[in-house]
């Protein structure tokens, strides 16, 4: 289209970006992100295919459509985009809604999956796209979008269409790495999601990654203990729970789970001592009471 944004007010994040440019390369374009032209209404599957293929998973938009597309809605739900990402063993990490964070992710080599509302709040036209780059001089984003292998969109217009979609953006990464702008909370939320749907191996790797960056994180230590246990690696499970207890000896749940990791290794005395510790901290807890009964019978 042929219009200028000069007459429009510059939205807040764009103004901030232009007034105080971040310390990032002036131009980034991840040209290796594959492009799959979308069929009508299939922007979700097409965009996700680009991202997962970039991460080395061979998947066509048609295969992904069977995971995310809802014919009557003529589109794909955000929660199913995240679920499909996990299907490929990849973490879908929600970004913080800052324009600058998008640039930081791109500069770190992470294409970003975004939702746009290309119309109005009252009459939305939802559209998924992949951000593959930016140009600080030209003041635009570079995208793979719909049937377009490469389009650009001014920061200001991008910010408006993105804002109308709730600033929704995902970085899609291997469980061995962490997006540049992720916090312990946002990253571990994605790992926990992976664990909850049974992606135990990926989740375990995610918890281990989190601990390399945030060594004392209790959620990551507990998650590592639980996933190692579920995968049958009881020694690793024990050591994760012990590390967590060194930081938070008052957490009864950790003692309970340590008791199971020890019991599985035949360490009956230590196991019983651990479950007694859990009960000493929280005597009324029905779970720990039942655990004690069970552990006395467990070889």
């Amino acid at each position, binding site marked *: 289209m042929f219009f200028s944004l000069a007459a429009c007010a510059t939205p807040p994040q764009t103004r901030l970006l232009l007034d105080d440019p971040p310390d990032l390369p002036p131009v980034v374009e991840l040209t290796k992100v594959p492009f799959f032209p979308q069929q009508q209404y299939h922007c979700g599957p097409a965009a996700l295919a680009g991202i997962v293929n970039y991460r080395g998973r061979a998947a066509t938009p048609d295969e992904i459509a069977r995971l995310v597309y809802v014919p009557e*809605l003529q589109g794909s739900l955000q929660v199913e985009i995240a679920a499909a990402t996990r299907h490929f063993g990849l973490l879908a990490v929600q970004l913080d809604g800052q324009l600058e964070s998008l640039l930081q992710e791109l500069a770190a080599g992470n294409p970003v999956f975004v939702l746009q509302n290309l119309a109005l709040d009252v009459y939305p036209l939802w559209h998924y796209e992949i951000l593959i780059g930016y140009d600080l001089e030209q003041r635009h984003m570079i995208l793979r979008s719909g049937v377009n292998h490469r389009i650009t969109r001014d920061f200001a217009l991008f910010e408006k269409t993105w804002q109308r979609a709730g600033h929704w953006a995902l970085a899609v990464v291997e469980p061995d790495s962490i997006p540049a702008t992720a916090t312990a909370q946002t990253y571990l939320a994605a790992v926990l999601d992976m664990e909850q749907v049974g992606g135990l191996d990926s989740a375990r790797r995610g918890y281990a990654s989190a601990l390399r960056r945030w060594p004392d994180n209790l959620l990551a230590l507990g998650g590592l203990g639980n996933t190692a*246990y579920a995968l049958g690696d009881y020694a690793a499970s024990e050591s994760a729970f012990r590390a967590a207890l060194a930081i938070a000896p008052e957490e009864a749940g950790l003692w309970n789970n340590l008791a199971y990791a020890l019991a599985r290794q035949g360490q009956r005395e230590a196991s019983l001592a651990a479950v007694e510790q859990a009960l000493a901290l929280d005597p009324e807890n029905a779970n720990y009471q039942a655990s004690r009964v069970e552990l006395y019978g467990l070889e």
Partner: protein
Amino acid sequence: MKIKNLFPCLVIAIAVLSTSMPAQAGMVATDQLQKSVIAAEFANITGQREWIEEQLLLGGVAQPEASARVAAMTDAEIAQIYQRIDEVPAGGNTFLVLVIVFLVLELTGVIDVIPNK
């Protein structure tokens, strides 16, 4: 499509339970380990999953995909779209009929209907 295991921690609990034990014994789930940051427990999550599966079937998704897709969602995701599946965004890029209607708005820079500028 690979059917995902919905409740890994429940499965662990069952695996280590002898038949006479009360149901609560076993490992505490990761998001319930820290007293200070216990995650929300979702009420009647089974009923919510059934409702969403019905909606996917009504929406034209076939079986067994509909079941597998519901199983691939976390409890929090289920709660996010329960009874709101028609309200939450469904990215799909409608690009035919509305173009003329929005052309005027587009020219003013208020909106951006047509992605291929």
